[in-house]
C-alpha cells in the first residue's frame, strides 16, 4: 500500500464513525444508503474497511437506534439514526476534528505554500 493510501486509511479510520453519524443525522438511512450519501459528498470507501462492522459497533455502544421499514415498496431494510448519546458524541467529535484540523493546517499549510508553484 502506498504511503498516501495508508495515511488516508488512518485518517478515515479515526473519523468514519463521525461521518456515518453525520449522514444519518440528515435522516434515517440503511447501510447502502449511507454509502451513497458519503459517495455523493466525494467520500468513497473503496479500498477501505466496510461500514457494516462500524455500524455494528455504533449499535452496540448505543450511539444509534435501529428500526425496520420497507424502502420504496422494496424489502424491509434496517434503518439507523443517531441516538441522543450518538448526537452528543457527534457534536463532541466534530469539535475535536475541527480543532485538530485547524492545528494541522497551521503546520501543514506552510508546507503547501512553500511547495506551491
Amino acid at each position, binding site marked *: 500500500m502506498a504511503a498516501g493510501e495508508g495515511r488516508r486509511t488512518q485518517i478515515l479510520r*479515526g473519523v468514519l464513525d463521525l461521518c456515518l453519524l453525520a449522514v444519518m443525522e440528515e435522516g434515517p438511512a440503511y447501510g*447502502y444508503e449511507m454509502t451513497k450519501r458519503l459517495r455523493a459528498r466525494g467520500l468513497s470507501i473503496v479500498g477501505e*474497511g*466496510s461500514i*457494516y*462492522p462500524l455500524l455494528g*459497533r455504533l449499535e452496540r*455502544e448505543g450511539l444509534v437506534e435501529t428500526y425496520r421499514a420497507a424502502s420504496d415498496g422494496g424489502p424491509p431494510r434496517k434503518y439507523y439514526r443517531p441516538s441522543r448519546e450518538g448526537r452528543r458524541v457527534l457534536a463532541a467529535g466534530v469539535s475535536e476534528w475541527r480543532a485538530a484540523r485547524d492545528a494541522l493546517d497551521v503546520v501543514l499549510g506552510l508546507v503547501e505554500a512553500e511547495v506551491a508553484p
Partner: protein
Amino acid sequence: MNEFVEECRREWKRLGVPDPVANEMAADLTVDLEEAEADGASAEEVLGRGAHDPRSFATAWATERGLVQRPRLPGGRGILRRSHPAAAIGAVFALIAIVGAALVISASSSGSRRLGLPPRPEFRAAPGAVWVAAPGAIPRVMVIAEDTNDSGVDTHTVGSVLLIVGLAGSVPLMLVWLWVGPSGWSRRRTHIDDRPSRPGY
C-alpha cells in the same frame, strides 16, 4: 454476490452467531448488494476491502456487534483469564523448579551448604547422611541457613529433588498447553461483549 453472502453465513455459523441474527444480517447484506449492483456500483464500494475476504468481513461485523468474543492477542490477559487454573498450577511447579535450581547452583558454587533443622533429640544423623523427610517433619524445614553442625540436609540433594518435582509438574503442563493451544483450555461460547472497543472500523 450471493456467494459472498453465503460465505458470510457459513462463517457466522462457525462463530456461533445465533441463526436469527445471522439471517437478519445476511438479508440486509443481500438487499444492499443487490441495490448496489442495480446502481452499477462495485462490491468494493459497499464492502470496501472486505469484498475480497468474506470470512474476515463476517468476523469483523459479528465481533463489532458484540455477537462473538473479540480475538485476543497470544499472551494477553484473556488467555491468562481463561486458563488461570492450569497456569497457576504450572506457575507453582515452575517456581519449585526455580528454587530447586537455585539451591543446586548455590550448593555447587559454595560447597556443602545445608538446610538447618531444629535438633532432634531422638535422632542424630551421622555425618554425611541424608534425611528423608517424613510428612510430619515437612513443616520443620522452614529456615534456610548455613548449618555449622552435621545434622542438616544436603542443600544439593534438596535442590535436586525440588528441581525434579518442579520439572515433572511444569513440563507436562507446558506440553499439553502447546498441544491443545491457548484456546483449547476453554470451550468457545457466544456472548455479548460489552467492552468499549477501539476507535475505527
